[in-house]
């Protein structure tokens, strides 16, 4: 059986979240993301770092060795910091490392199948399973998922037609028009891919709507980060002094601008060392950059670029960023090729421009609450895979034979079927019959 994973604590509530994995592969997968894997021992709490791509989080790991666990299989639990975003990132990382998202009630089902739950509760479990399928049916009537369902079904229908077209040329060679069929398929798959991409784009929008845009303010010490934050928030929150390194803690404050929530994170100057990299707290800054949706890089317009500034410009060059030249109330000596906003935090000059710029960065037609928005990890996973298959089909359409193209189309169809819950191949056979005139 596959190794399954799920978030076991309610999402978005509480200071810690528990992400739990069960299955033969649990230990192996944990090894890929946990820093102190050599310390893992059954029934011991181990402190380490969850490290995967951009995630770098301290967390606790507990290992329950089969059969002495709830499910009777190897179980690994990660206890990490709470909060929806991080929890989902951890979940996503484990899925990318080979676990599959658990069905509702699947841990309990496995526990039962492995004889870990008493016979008395058998009926209860059956009820749970049935209740879940009922809930899924009900979810179909939910406006949002109903819309998604219809959208994905319409994509499946396009694919069904193409499979039927190709399979017709395969099963009825006398009605042959293969070249034309494959050309048509290519055009249709381009369309399908566009639609899938549109849906996937809404996934980030979905997140933004739920949790807001994370905007991290960075800059060398004493460049006026906290002043800018205060100006943005419209109230005095952080202590502002002329002494570099006053702000010690990361400050997060949120505003709502044109119905979009923006969370500002002030990364405080940390200068404990003479080393340039250390001076700007490179590790912390890096992490802050990674976890944010957009970076506000503050430079001092009254001085030339320093080594520290250059370093920060380099660090953020592939990230969504807004460059802010602060202190225009002083003399303006800095000239910069990159697009930037001139502000004076002191005089509250052009501060609204920053908000508007952030808003615009996320306004590329993606925030449209009336449309479809993806929020379900399972859906996003399926659509991402479907998108890859589309690419594969388009790359290979010209060089492959029809039997292979048909094979890939079926794969694509099945991937989308994970969202619509349809798996019937009979629909393709029916489509062949209903659309074409055949005979012997």
């Amino acid at each position, binding site marked *: 059986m596959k190794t399954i994973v799920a978030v076991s604590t309610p999402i978005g509530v509480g200071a810690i979240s528990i992400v739990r994995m069960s299955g033969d592969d649990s230990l192996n997968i944990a090894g890929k993301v946990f820093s102190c894997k050599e310390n893992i021992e059954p029934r011991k709490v181990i402190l380490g770092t969850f490290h995967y791509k951009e995630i770098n989080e301290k967390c606790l790991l507990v290992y329950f060795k089969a059969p002495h666990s709830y499910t009777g299989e190897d179980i690994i639990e990660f206890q990490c910091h709470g909060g929806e975003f991080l929890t989902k990132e951890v979940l996503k990382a484990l899925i990318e490392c080979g676990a599959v998202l658990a069905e509702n009630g699947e841990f309990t089902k496995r526990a039962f*199948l492995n004889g870990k739950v008493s016979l008395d509760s058998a009926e209860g479990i059956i009820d749970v399973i049935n209740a879940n399928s009922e809930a899924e049916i009900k979810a179909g009537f939910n406006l949002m998922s109903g819309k998604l369902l219809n959208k994905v079904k319409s994509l499946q229908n396009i694919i069904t037609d193409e499979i039927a077209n190709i399979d017709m040329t395969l*099963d009825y*060679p006398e009605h042959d028009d293969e070249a034309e069929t494959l050309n048509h398929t290519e055009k249709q798959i381009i369309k399908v891919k566009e639609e899938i991409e549109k849906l996937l784009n809404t996934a980030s929008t979905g997140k933004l709507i739920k949790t807001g845009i994370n905007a991290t303010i960075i800059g060398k010490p004493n460049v006026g980060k906290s002043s800018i934050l205060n100006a943005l928030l419209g109230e005095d929150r952080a202590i502002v002094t002329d002494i570099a390194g006053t702000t010690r803690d990361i400050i997060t404050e949120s505003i709502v601008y044109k119905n979009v929530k923006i969370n500002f994170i002030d990364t405080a100057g940390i200068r404990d060392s003479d080393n340039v990299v250390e001076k700007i707290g490179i590790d912390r800054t890096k992490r802050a950059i990674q976890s944010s949706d957009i970076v506000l890089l503050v430079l001092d317009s009254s001085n030339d670029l320093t080594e520290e500034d250059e370093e920060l410009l380099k660090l953020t060059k592939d990230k969504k960023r807004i460059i802010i030249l602060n202190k225009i109330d002083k003399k303006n000596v800095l000239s910069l090729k990159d697009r930037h906003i001139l502000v004076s935090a002191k005089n509250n000059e052009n501060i609204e421009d920053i908000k508007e710029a952030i808003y615009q960065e996320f306004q590329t037609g993606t925030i449209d609450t009336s449309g479809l928005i993806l929020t379900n990890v399972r859906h996003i996973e399926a659509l991402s895979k479907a998108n890859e298959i589309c690419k594969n089909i388009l790359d290979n359409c010209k060089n492959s034979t029809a*039997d292979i193209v048909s*094979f890939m189309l079926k794969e694509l169809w099945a991937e989308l079927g994970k969202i619509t819950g349809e798996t019937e191949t009979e629909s393709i056979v029916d489509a062949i019959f209903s659309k074409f005139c055949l005979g012997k």
Partner: protein
Amino acid sequence: MKKVYYDSIVVGAGHAGCESALALSRLGNKTLLLTLNLDAIAFLACNPSIGGTAKGHLVCEIDALGGEMGKNTDETLIQKRMLNRGKGPAVYSLRAQADKQKYHSRMKRVLEEQENLTLKQSEVTKILCRKGKVIGVKTAMGETFIAKSVVISTGVYLKSKIIIGEYTKNSGPNGFAPANQLTKSLIDLGLEVRRFKTGTPARINGKTIDFSELEVQYGEDDIQNFSFLTTKKTKNQSVCYLTYTNSKTHEVILNNLSRAPLYSGIIKGTGPRYCPSIEDKIVRFKDKERHQIFLEPEGLDTNEFYIQGVSTSLPYDVQEEMYHTIKGLEHSSIMRNAYAIEYDCINPLELYPTLESKKIKGLFFAGQVNGTSGYEEAGAQGIIAGINANAYNHNKEMLILKRNQAYIGVLIDDLVTKGTNEPYRMMTSRAEYRLYLRQDNADIRLTEIGRKIGLVDDERYKIYKSKMLKLNKAKEKLKIKIKLDNKLKNFLKNNNENIPSQSLTVYDLIKRNNIDAFKINDEFGIFKSFNNDIINSINIEVKYEGYLKQQEDDIKKLEKEESLVISEDIDFFSIKGLRLEARQKLDKIKPKTISQASRISGVSPADISVLIIYLKLRQNGKN
């Protein structure tokens, strides 16, 4: 009354019955094959051809298991082609024009010569049973034959009725007598009987056809045979022709629709969607300006031509008017009129995947009586019914081919799991493991199975073993490195391929899009000691490696589910948590594995979870 004893009885000597009877007798069972008419043995009642898409696959599989259809076709064919070239090796499909008379007479001879087999003309009217087990059959003349197992392969002969316009007659195909009494016996045994319909076009005298303006379709030389045993090259001895219907043809049909039995209500049986009559095609596909027609010779000793694509049940006078509108057929004369035929068949949901009846032990069904269409589909079921009747006789494990092993597996699984509401035709699109289930590897997939059963004789097994040996040797050649000299550079350039920085292995070369194993052999002689079949197999395996691997993973997943067996004594109605519809469906179909259960329409994934839990519970309870 005198009773005669056999091990097994096969009722009907069509394509299913012949394979059943041969399998049984070859496995050492004293077998009686009864037929209404010895002249109708292995009769090609519709088109004079064997194979085609998915059907060619079935023939190769029957052959790999030790059946007769492939050999019989190779011996009697007069033209052969490989369909779907250029669409990928998975769907390459052999199709042959067979000489109708020779096909019949050779098969009849094979049956006559077969040890342990008694061939007799007699009409079976009753199936004899005792305590839920079959014990024999009774004939119209009053004979009683006793046997441990009986295979019913009556084709379209049960209460068959032919229809030509207003004219109807109780008759089997081609004027052969129908079997009017056996249906009642099936109903009395509690089996669900249904009425299906199919049809056939007219046969026209070739002397009256003007071929001069028609497109000719030639056969292909040098292509594989149906049988892995056939070593000689079969010869193309005739050609087919291509013509089309036109607006005049359609006008004639539309003007006479009121006289078409399909629309006037005379025809009650359900016909196949994939093989509609010409009137059905014209009504359903109004926009299509013309329909393709193939003129196929019925044999070398006759002028009769089969008019593929215009089967109809219109009255004889409309038929004549209609055929005369077609280019080439303007002055043609009809020798046998087109007709529709209705017949009784059983609901295949009555059967286990072994083709044994769920209600009567030892009673097997195969062929069109199960609601299928086509000679090849019939033959495929025939050999399985024969193999399993033998297993029944000797209390051995029965053979169920899986969907990932053979088209035969797909065919039977579809029939007994999903059922069918129209005559079922095999299509490659029904096979989810199409890339793996190919003609060229039918022997690799099935010969060991046939050997274990005992149907694969030493000769066939030796051929198979030697092929496997050669394949392995050929695979070794893939590792050969070809130096990056001017010869290789030119070869790559001529095939529009990039030139790499270092030497390439044969394997790397085959992977290239514009190059294949044959081209490499022509240029570098790598595979010169191997025949085309071997080179072809190597080529496919390398080119399709990634996709095959992906399918293999799917197959492994399926196998896990297949291993969860549902025992026959489970009472689905007593399982709490199953929805009512699922209980009913499961009770009716009685799936043998969780995998089969999951393919039943109306059984949801939640039902399957409940079922798995129930099975586990039972297991735990027993332990």
